């Protein structure tokens, strides 16, 4: 796949269709793959990477990139296309300035899960019949492939590209995923159990802002958490209330706009399952207002931005809260 993508990128650059390419390159470690912009064939040849660790969603980068001169080529996985669509809908991306090549998505791997098996010094991985062969500085190790898959890929909602100019490989379908299983488990807890669960998670937060910075729904010109006039600006949580409220406010801000790309949980250095907050909103929106997937299209009105006469009344929150 990497080869095909490099060839496509070089071809589009040489034809003058695009003047830049957004893809990924390797950082210090083999599993440290980050988005990068390439301006010529040499750079691409040298450092363009697309492998089992390439999970990062590049859609958000296009908010800035699409406003620069010329057209940029973006390789988008199915999940990334949802984010891309949502950003078009919010007028954050200039569609005409992006050439989208749809590429097959995951499942992508979670280096943390490999490391949790005691495997360190990772140099590279190979998937052979769903056995993961890991080349390390200490020699080759193996583990079952699916035990190393990222959480966000294990509960993938769709293999279908919702927007593209051309595709490499075949397009997939939306999946009947199990993504709400954990949300249901949380819903079935008592209020105290749920509170304890979230405290045990959110108390780990170090306010690094990685979740916000990676989130394709968080593209505000000025984030309320950085705005001294907002009344909720803070750099670090001074107490448990602020730890909780940062994530709850963020979940409210992206409610109805979150495309469930799972980047927040993927980048969290403390492994807080932040995506569960967003999924709870997605599930509630589905229940209250009918099935809705943000980013699926660019024309529909989001349920929270629309008023219908048969919308549920606000007291449903209270009614459901009664235990």
């Amino acid at each position, binding site marked *: 796949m990497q080869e095909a993508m490099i060839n496509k990128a070089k071809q589009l650059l040489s034809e003058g269709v695009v003047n830049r390419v957004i893809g990924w390159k390797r950082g210090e470690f083999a599993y440290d793959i980050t988005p990068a912009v390439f301006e010529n064939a040499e750079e691409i040849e040298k450092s363009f990477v697309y492998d089992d660790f390439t999970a990062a969603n590049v859609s958000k980068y296009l908010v800035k990139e699409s406003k620069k001169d010329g057209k940029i080529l973006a390789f988008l996985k199915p999940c990334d296309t949802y984010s891309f669509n949502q950003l078009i*809908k919010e007028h954050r991306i200039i569609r005409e300035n992006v050439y989208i090549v749809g590429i097959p998505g995951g499942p992508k791997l979670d280096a943390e899960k490999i490391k949790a098996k005691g495997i360190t010094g990772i140099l590279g991985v190979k998937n052979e019949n769903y056995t993961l062969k890991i080349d390390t500085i200490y020699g080759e190790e193996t583990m079952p492939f699916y035990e190393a898959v990222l959480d966000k890929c294990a509960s993938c909602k769709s293999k279908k590209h919702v927007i593209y100019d051309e595709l490499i490989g075949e397009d997939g379908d939306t999946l009947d995923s199990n993504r709400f299983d954990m949300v249901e488990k949380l819903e079935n807890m008592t209020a105290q159990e749920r509170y304890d669960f979230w405290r045990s998670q959110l108390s780990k937060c170090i306010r690094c802002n990685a979740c916000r910075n990676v989130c394709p729904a968080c593209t505000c010109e000025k984030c309320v958490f950085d705005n001294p006039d907002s009344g909720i600006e803070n750099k670090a949580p001074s107490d448990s209330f602020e730890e909780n409220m940062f994530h709850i406010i963020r979940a409210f801000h992206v409610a109805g*706009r979150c495309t469930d790309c799972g980047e927040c949980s993927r980048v969290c250095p403390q492994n807080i399952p932040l995506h569960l907050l967003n999924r709870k909103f997605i599930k509630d929106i589905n229940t209250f207002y009918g099935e809705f997937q943000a980013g699926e299209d660019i024309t529909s009105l989001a349920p929270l*931005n629309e008023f219908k006469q048969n919308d549920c009344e606000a007291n449903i929150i209270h009614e459901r809260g009664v235990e």
Partner: protein
Amino acid sequence: MQRIGVFVCHCGTNIAATIDVKAVAETLSKEPGVIVSQDYQYMCSESGQNLVKNAIKEHNLTGVVVCSCSPRMHENTFRKAAASAGLNPYLVEIANIREQCSWIHKDIASATEKAIILGKAAVAKVHLNAPLTAGESPVVKRALVIGGGIAGIQTALDIAEAGFDVDIVEKNPTIGGKMAQIDKTFPTLDCAACILTPKMVEASQNEHITIHSFSEISDVKGFVGNFTVTIKKKARFVDETKCTGCGLCTEKCPMKKVPNEFNMGLDNRSAIYIPFAQAVPKVATIDPNYCMMMKTGKCGICSKVCSAGAIDYKQQDQYIEQKYGAIVVATGFNPINLDKYDEFAYNQCPDVVTSLELERLMNAAGPNGGTLLRPSDKTHPHKIVFVQCVGSRCDDSKGKPYCSKICCMYTAKHAMLIREKYPDTEVYVFYIDVRTPGKNFDEFYRRAVEQYNVHYIKGMVGKVTPRSDGKIDVQASDLLANEQLHIDADMVVLAAAIEPDKTARPLATMLTTQMDTNDFFTEAHPKLRPVESATAGIFLSGACQGPKDIPETVAQASAAAAKAIGLLVKNSITCNPCVAHSNELMCNGCSSCEKVCPYGAITYIDKEFKMPDRTVAIRRVASVNPAVCQGCGACTVACPSGAMDLNGFSNSQIIAEVDAICK
């Protein structure tokens, strides 16, 4: 430095009996920025207002907090007082310590504590108030009346009389409403049609009135003085402009087995029909559920016999968009569905009828040509039992908690008319109470009892059982004689409760007006503003606001017209300066606010910005049209970045209030 004055009103004993007003004034005087804090018996009185004005001048106040009744009552009074003393009126804040405190609490200590907290919140807010200036917006000189019953017709006629254009939107093929179905009217017993139909004709001939019959409201946008309404003209499959109302098509139509709504389904009409002889507009309508041509494509007789060529089987629903300055709601009422009342055998026995069905049975244009005959076997009934309060004054979920108001009088009318026309008929009326408060009403009822010998029995009917011999066994209790009664009646008439028309609720949503739990529209003030809704520019006429008889309906209809005219004569109205504005530096241009704005006040512009790195960027940012914005605040909560804010109710002001309350 702020110089804030606090003024605590006793409202006689309304506030002072439950709240220690002196303690409130004393405590609030210690709040930051407060330099004068006083209490007074009636702050809204001339001398109370002078207290405020003098304090503003004497202490050079920068803000005023009045702890009193709801801002709905006297905010304007105090704003005007402040303005006359030279203080910007929007630097006045009201702490509602009456409706939201003294009236709902009993314990003086806790009510006083709450009043202090509400006062502190208002002080915290007024610290952040900024002077605002109100603009003006023009008034469209045209009114919309929704509903073409007697209420809507009267309102339209009165508005037209004042020289303004007015449109009536009626969902049925003809105007006239319920009154057109009524036979005689109490307490004078004049014929309903004889007094209604001239008004219908007058409405249709008035050059200022446009009637959209067989039409519905599909969308309402805008605000007082400037509503934009989309009217859906339902396809009647007959060209209104060509149809002469000759009625030949209705005679020739082979499909004659359609239940006739106008006669409450007691007889049949044809698939193409004119509801009744005096219908306005007198235009035929095709019922596509029964028309053979529409259903099977075979027939087309009406089209062949129509010399005007008015039949159009392919007609589509049409949408008209029109601007209005004022909207009057006159959606009226319906009798409730009696399916749940098995004890009265309404669904089992055709000789158990509702009062409205009896009106049709007795009407000359009704199914029996005006002779009262039993629907089952077309014989004269000799014993008739009337049951009052069927579904009215109910404490269960089947019925309505309220009194339907008109039933006592129309039942007396029915009883009297039957005794007059058929003296050999015995009439029984079972009642809980007979309520006759109205001019000449009690005299009317007494005539029924004393002159016409109608048997009024205090008590309720327990069970109605149709018998195999055609009689109806009515089991009832006589509460005064304390005995059980069995009456073998020929007919039973049920005075069904009345309820607002089903179209009222979705309409209320479109108009953003309030309804009560029974779906009656809520008036702006139950005593002092009975024909205005709480939404500016929306007025209420007739039974949509509560059960009413014809004289009351007509009185209210004219009152609503007067209010609408009062608005339409103005060339412009003062706008609310508490409108939204967008902080362009923070706006993402995401369109969330535009999508939630019910008034279409937000547009987007591409604007050049000098960025911190000295480059120039063109960004899409929201722009609020202050003349259109109504300050509802929907955009401020929809905005993900907090760029949208509301003058007079800014996010920081609200948070300051919350902080003051939670402190």
